[in-house]
């Protein structure tokens, strides 16, 4: 049976991973793309979160804002995930040993879960209250939680750089 470590080394030993590790330009280049995309994810989600908290864009309905912003957020997230995966395979074993990396992945999952709960449950009766400035408690909670989770994601991301030697 294939163990997790064998599975990981299969990718880590690939030519792709080898290239990212050894090429002086490729790693910073992918990192820069990762930073740009994660900034867009966090910044664009913040627009929605601040609306949910009743702190910004109050004259716009919640549904209008999510419809305008979320396509950008998801596109940026796709780029962040692919670039992040490329960075990960280049040094998979080291990343998996790093507590901040594991925490970052779990926090991203939590942020996703928060979003699913909001859209699936809390926003069921969205048309009834989406034009209000002060939203129901579950909506405000989702906005506040989202900000905290994404700040934690970025914090862990930055801390990986200080606790893991890549080169």
């Amino acid at each position: 049976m294939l163990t997790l470590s064998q599975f990981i080394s299969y990718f880590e030993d690939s030519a792709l991973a080898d290239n990212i590790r050894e090429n002086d330009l490729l790693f910073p280049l992918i990192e820069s793309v990762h930073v740009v995309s994660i900034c867009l994810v966090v910044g664009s989600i913040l627009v929605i979160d601040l609306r949910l908290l009743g702190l910004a864009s109050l004259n716009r309905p919640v549904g209008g804002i999510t419809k305008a912003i979320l396509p950008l957020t998801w596109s940026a997230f796709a780029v962040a995930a692919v670039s992040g995966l490329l960075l990960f395979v280049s040094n998979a074993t080291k990343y998996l040993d790093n507590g901040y990396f594991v925490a970052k992945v779990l926090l991203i999952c939590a942020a996703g879960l928060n979003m699913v709960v909001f859209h699936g449950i809390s926003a069921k009766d969205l048309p009834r209250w989406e034009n209000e400035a002060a939203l129901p408690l579950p909506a405000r909670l989702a906005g506040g939680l989202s900000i905290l989770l994404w700040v934690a994601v970025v914090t862990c991301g930055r801390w990986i750089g200080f606790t893991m030697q890549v080169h």
Partner: protein
Amino acid sequence: MTGAGLSEFCNWLAATPLSHTIQTAGWIIPTLQTIHILSVAVVFSSAILVDLRIWRLLERDVPLGEITRRFLPTIWPVLFILLTTGSLLIVGEPRRSLLNSTFYLKMALLAVAIVLTVALQRSISSSPSFWDGNRMRRIAGRFAASASILVWCGILFAGRWIAYTQAG
């Protein structure tokens, strides 16, 4: 300032008590960098959202003037946080930036981004349909928006590259 003078200035800065504190408490630099990158996320996204609206790629039903009023004013106080955290990072590790040409490229691009953002904010607040006036204006608006996207991306790339081009 000559290269030697700048290097001396870095040594002087690195010997100050504030620099010493930043260097020795291991959590200060990563914390400053985290605040810095979160602020970058806010400024960058605000600028990009307005640029995309100029390209008519989002919230077409909302007037450009309202989009500009909603997003661009946020940039200035957050830019102040960026300058503060950035300055403290320089005090902590002067040679990392001040003896690094990538840092000066980043600052030059920042100057361009600020000029572009002020120009967009002023033109739209004085005349909301300024960039819709005629065909030339529409093309000029899209040109300015594209330049803004490229310059902000350049700032973020240069920021990441400082770590790879620092003097020994």
